[in-house]
């Protein structure tokens, strides 16, 4: 269709976004197919879905003139049509080919996007063609119906008002599908030309349908009492009722809006500016308070509090808009595990948990590679070969569990395997060979993690495909720390390995605790503070170059900001300590005074010249002064390196002050 290219070029972003959705959905469905063998109704539904995904991919690829994608989608669709119509049976080889086809489509579209050479499709096309020629199978039997089910007729009459309040026919359909199986959906026209929809719903006898649908605007009848449908007599043409003014702009029924991420960033930045202005206003208000009569001051104060609350709500709403289910990261993993397990001759089952946990879109994009690396590691280094596992009394099939959970403002992602665990001796030997410094004495898990994450460390002698793509553990750790997160390791020889990534839900605006040292203020993200304690100076003991304080039957290393940053402190007989981190990563950050809790707008320090380890950014509390935001994870690590001067780099501190 020559001549269209210019016209439809503007839709390429829509095309990429939509094809990604269909490809992801197709991949999900394909991976589910294995488990549906022996369930003809479910298998058929899955095949129908797949057919539609490829059908739509074919149509939209044709529109943007991406011929190879159109042709490939066409062949996949053709094969699925043959299966749907009972001319072909779905075989394991067929599923593999569909998976390969899906992946190839993904590659074609991504190559088109990056304007690189498109991969060939001949092999997949030929494979599909040969499958279709294979003998046909008899038509599948009709879907089983249980006598346990009762048929209900649910009637829905759409109106503008209902639609506006979220009760559209699609919402009704979805709700009904949650309660039972919709076997029929028919639109009807009644005597007054009113359109209604009749859904036939199969529901187990045990379910109280009427009660379930009490808040849904449908009438419910058991099937026997339903009257035959009446073909309507129309209203006189041109009567008022026939033209319920389709007002102004066109309405869209889709409840999803795609928004360019940069627009959301912009919105978030505006809210950030407002938070700062609000803090400034609050600061000014405090200064004029005594000049204002009490009665009027109260009104001002009430409004200020209201603005505070509304601003917080606005901020939270925008943050929610940016949140997407972490499932986006998880979805690619089954493919990776499947391929890699096959290549390495291992049997691996992947369990995904907490896929609906929501995190900032920004984080999703950056977490993909680290999680991918950890999963690859788990397959190639963690899980043992089936015979080894059997010899150790384990199931031949290893399990990798990916878990996401959100608690408060912190998201936790875990990649766990039940494999051989980290071989500490091998790690130490390898680290020595690589010339890395190894802490003396018994190593705990955080020491091992530090070695694994040291640049230049790799336990495999040759860089193999899966882990040798430049994204080593060092990069994993660096990425997570850039996102103000932490990595922890938990491993047990013979039992398995678990990597725990903890991150703030969103980065732009956060709640923080403000502490004061001498004349300087510091902000610490509230999510990383577990506890605030008071410690008398007398309880703090010197141990080599470190200071420790008694804490819950153990010892807590103390970091004094005053010393690290070379600020004159004002000794007061006791210090306030923010406890951050857990286990051997726990560390206390000591300040003179705690100012309180504030909402801070995080401005990261991008300039490498003024970047200092342990400081993640800066913020403005509203009084015009810039306050540094501390990164407890890095501070803790620096403290454990037993080189207090590492952050006490006077030159760096000087540059930071100049920056302020």
């Amino acid at each position, binding site marked *: *269709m020559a*001549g*269209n290219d210019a*016209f*439809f070029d*503007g*839709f390429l972003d*829509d*095309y990429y*976004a*939509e094809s990604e959705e269909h490809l992801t959905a197709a991949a999900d469905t394909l991976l589910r197919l294995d488990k549906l063998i022996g369930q003809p109704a479910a298998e058929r539904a899955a095949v129908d879905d797949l057919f*539609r995904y490829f*059908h*739509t991919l*074919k*149509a*939209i690829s*044709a*529109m943007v*003139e991406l011929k190879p994608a159109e042709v490939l989608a*066409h062949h996949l669709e053709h094969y699925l049509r043959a299966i749907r119509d009972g001319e072909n049976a779905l075989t394991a080889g067929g599923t593999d080919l569909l998976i390969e086809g899906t992946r190839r489509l993904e590659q074609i579209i991504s190559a088109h996007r990056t304007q690189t050479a498109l991969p060939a499709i001949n092999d997949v096309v030929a494979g599909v063609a040969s499958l279709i020629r294979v003998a046909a199978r008899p038509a599948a039997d009709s879907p089983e119906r249980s006598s346990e089910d009762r048929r209900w007729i649910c009637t829905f009459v*759409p*109106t*503008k008002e209902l*639609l506006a309040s979220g009760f*559209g*026919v*699609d919402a009704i*359909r979805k709700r009904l599908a949650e309660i039972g199986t919709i076997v029929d*959906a028919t*639109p009807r*026209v009644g005597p007054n*030309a*009113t*359109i209604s*929809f009749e859904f036939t719903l199969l529901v187990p006898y045990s379910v109280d349908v009427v009660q379930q649908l009490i808040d849904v605007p449908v009438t419910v009848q058991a099937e026997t009492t339903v009257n035959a449908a009446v*073909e*309507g*007599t*129309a*209203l006189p*043409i*041109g009567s008022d009722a*026939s*033209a*319920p*003014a*389709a007002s*102004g*702009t*066109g*309405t*869209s*029924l*889709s409840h999803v809006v*795609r928004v360019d991420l940069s627009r959301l960033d912009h919105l978030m930045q505006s809210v950030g500016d407002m938070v700062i202005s609000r803090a400034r206003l609050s600061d000014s208000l405090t200064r004029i308070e005594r000049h204002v009569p009490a009665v009027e001051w109260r009104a001002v104060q009430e409004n200020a509090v209201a603005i505070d609350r509304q601003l917080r709500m606005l901020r939270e709403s925008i943050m929610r808009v940016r949140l997407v289910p972490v499932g986006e990261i998880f979805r690619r993993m089954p493919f990776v595990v499947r391929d890699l397990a096959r290549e390495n001759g291992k049997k691996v089952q992947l369990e995904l948990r907490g896929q609906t946990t929501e995190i900032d879109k920004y984080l999703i994009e950056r977490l993909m590679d680290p999680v991918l690396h950890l999963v690859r590691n788990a397959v190639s280094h963690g899980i043992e070969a089936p015979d080894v596992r059997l010899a150790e009394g384990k199931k031949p099939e290893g399990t990798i569990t990916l878990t996401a959970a959100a608690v408060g403002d912190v998201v936790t992602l875990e990649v766990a395997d039940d494999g051989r665990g980290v071989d500490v001796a091998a790690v130490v030997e390898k680290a020595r060979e690589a010339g890395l410094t190894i802490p003396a004495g018994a190593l705990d898990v955080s020491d091992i993690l530090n070695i694994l994450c040291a640049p230049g460390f790799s336990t495999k002698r040759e860089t193999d495909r899966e882990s040798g793509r430049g994204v080593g553990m060092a990069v994993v750790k660096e990425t997570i720390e850039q996102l103000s997160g932490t990595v922890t390791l938990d491993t047990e020889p013979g039992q398995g390995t678990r990597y725990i990534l903890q991150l703030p839900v969103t980065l732009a605006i956060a709640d923080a605790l403000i502490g004061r040292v001498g004349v300087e203020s510091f902000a610490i993200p509230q999510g990383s503070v577990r506890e605030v304690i008071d410690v008398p100076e007398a309880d703090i003991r010197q141990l080599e170059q470190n200071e420790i304080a008694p804490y819950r039957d153990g010892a807590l290393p103390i970091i004094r900001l005053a010393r690290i940053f070379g600020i004159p402190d004002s000794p007061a007989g006791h210090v306030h300590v923010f406890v951050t981190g857990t286990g051997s990563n726990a560390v206390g950050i000591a300040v003179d005074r705690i100012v309180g809790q504030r909402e801070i707008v995080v401005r990261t320090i991008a300039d490498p010249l003024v970047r200092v380890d342990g400081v993640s950014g800066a913020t403005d509390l509203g009084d015009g002064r810039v306050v540094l935001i501390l990164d407890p994870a890095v501070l803790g690590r620096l403290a454990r390196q037993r080189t207090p001067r590492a952050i006490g780099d006077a030159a760096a501190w000087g540059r930071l002050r100049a920056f302020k």
Partner: protein
Amino acid sequence: MHTILVVDDSPTIRKMVRASLQAVPSAQFIEAPTGLEAIEQLAVARVDVIVLDLNMPDMHGIDVLKFVRRNSRYKHIPIVVLTTRGDDSSRKAAEEAGATSYLTKPFAPQVLSGTVQELLNATVDSGAQR
């Protein structure tokens, strides 16, 4: 003011259809991603022309066509079927079910807007009866 109902499960195609029909003067658009929602729109809005995809989840375009043609209140509405090319049986089925016009994807924007414009003109010509 002409209201055009664009029915397609692909948001990209709906956007492309709308863009192509920007050439039609004083057109406004309503969209529906499924057949059921297309019929719901007929109930709540006045529609002058329908651009209809055939292969959609939960209600096939042919069934939407049949529904509209069976009902005296809506049967006058011109329907442009816009479906993926290469399916000859569906052309026949669509014509039998009462499609006013049948176009295939990939489509040329000018052809679509020309077709819709023609159908709207014809409606205006016979508009005296309405």
